[in-house]
């Protein structure tokens, strides 16, 4: 039997998340303090594996209790609290936001199934998705550790790093949109909407002028996505998967935009 690791309590940061998300660069955690461990993933892989085992066992405990003793005894509020306690949380958030979003989606999937009194089989189904997301996340962190060892991952920074070129800006926008899904999966739709608004104002507006010269229709599409389609999805009765679909469609358009601007830059005249 594996020795239990020491769990460090982390503050739950709800409203602070939105503010931190606006101040930090791509890859930076917006949920609580970032430990230095995220810049040395390889050394902590053992710890992350233990934490995932621990989470799987804890979540299983909640679902077992639900199955045997019912809703009140199960204490579904403990599910997000367990997740907030582990360092693995920051490790996956800083390295693969889409899987981070899936983990939150899984946690709330189990919680909502318990809270709504769903049959145990349904709760187990949600638990299975959550476990899959956790293992997928651990895999992503292991891959990130390898890249980090080779010096291919930028050091996680705690101060904002501005993208300097249009392609960098577009990649940054795509990453911020991943964070929108993550915040929505955390059931923080206002934080998600704030990210959308600020991404439009402080990132997209800087590139749309050059982009409209290349493809006016693409800019119109993205303007509508930023200002209508995505905000409406975040306000309404959408599921996380619905929001994810909107974001993925936007990211495909942003990839197209990036290719257009890269080509345009090759033809641009020189300054001197």
């Amino acid at each position, binding site marked *: 039997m594996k020795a239990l690791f020491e769990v460090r309590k982390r503050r739950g940061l709800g409203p602070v998340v939105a503010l931190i998300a606006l101040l930090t660069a791509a890859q930076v955690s917006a949920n609580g303090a970032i430990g230095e461990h995220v810049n040395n993933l390889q050394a902590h892989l053992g710890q992350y594996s233990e934490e995932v085992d621990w989470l799987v066992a804890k979540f299983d405990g909640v679902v077992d209790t639900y199955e045997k003793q019912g809703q009140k005894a199960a204490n579904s509020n403990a599910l997000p609290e367990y997740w907030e306690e582990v360092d693995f949380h920051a490790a996956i958030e800083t390295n693969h936001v889409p899987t981070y979003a899936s983990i939150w989606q899984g946690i709330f999937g189990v919680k909502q199934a318990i809270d709504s009194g769903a049959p145990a089989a349904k709760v187990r189904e949600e638990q299975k998705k959550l476990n899959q997301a956790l293992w997928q996340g651990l895999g992503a962190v292991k891959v990130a550790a390898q890249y980090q060892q080779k010096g291919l991952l930028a050091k996680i920074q705690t101060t904002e790093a501005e993208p300097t070129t249009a392609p960098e800006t577009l990649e940054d926008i795509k990453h911020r949109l991943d964070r929108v899904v993550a915040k929505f999966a955390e059931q923080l739709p206002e934080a998600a909407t704030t990210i959308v608004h600020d991404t439009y104002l402080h990132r997209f507006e800087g590139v749309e002028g*050059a982009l*409209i010269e*290349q493809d006016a229709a693409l800019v119109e599409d993205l303007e509508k996505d930023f200002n209508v389609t995505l905000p409406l999805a975040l306000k309404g009765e959408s599921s996380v998967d619905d929001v994810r679909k909107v974001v993925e469609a936007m990211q495909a358009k942003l990839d197209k935009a990036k290719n257009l601007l890269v080509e345009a830059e090759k033809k641009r005249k020189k300054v*001197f």
Partner: protein
Amino acid sequence: MQRRVFLQSLLAAGAFGLIPAGRSLATTPPVAADTLSVDQLPPMEGDLTLYLGRGEGGLYENVLEAIRQRNPKLNLQIRRGVTAALANTIVAEAKAGVRRADVFWAVDSGAIGMVADAGLARPLPADLTGQLKAGFQYPQWAPVTGRIRTLPYNTGRLTPEQIPDSVMALADSELSIGWAPAYASFQSFVTAMRLLEGDRVTAEWLRAISKRAKSYAGELGVVMGVERGEVDLGFANHYYTLRLKSGKPDANVDLAFTKNDAGCLVNASGVLALSEGDLPITFIRYLLTREVQSYLASEAYEIPLVNGVKPPVGLPPLNRVSPPRVDLTQLADLRPTLNLMRNAGVL
């Protein structure tokens, strides 16, 4: 008959349509003798820290990279951020007795005014400020490039004769209007209106316009909304329309200008020197060379503010427009403007 200034080159048959879509519009303009070329400037050496307010995607970065490549002994460190936040940082650092920035290049003059008002800007040499057009010469900062407020209008819905040449008269018209009240340039325009017309008249104007206004998130959105025919005309900086027409030459939009009021305000990005020595001043000189000025005119559609460099294609020279006389640094304090806009129910 109302007099107004239009983009004659856009109205002339096929002028805009001849320009290939997706390409920059300008050819190398002729220059006056007093505009410096980069070849006339000394090389720069040593350490220089620039605080750079965000703007124009990567075009300012292209200028900085070109300066770096031309000056291999220059160690140029750049801190980027939102212009207003950087201005606050510079003032706060000075209060703490710290001076990190040698030069501040801001995307708008309001932020420049804030730093200058704090007593942190060095006086600039007269031969440097003398390169700038009349009306854009300030002792402690240099406007770099300009943007003019315009009325983009839908050519399918309006003829030029139907557009007032007074922005104040729009309040009494029946025209539907697109605007972006949260946009910084719009707020600078309202600040200019407050300075020229007074708070009471500005508040009345805002209330009247808001009854027929559709809001957009940004001013490119305004121009696109005008072009789609969602509104008759809008308020926007000039370059959005030029860029849209570059990508879509048959777009249903043209530019109109008001006269002698806030509606045709020319605002500017600006630069100031914060530390002593020749290096910050020489850096500013680079930004005012005909090469950098014509680059920003042709690639970013900004208005060059030194003498002898032509404006972007599709825009009349500044001496054919009648911008109001406003000290651009007075646009620094947005708080009264924001309060006024909130009280008028616009924000």
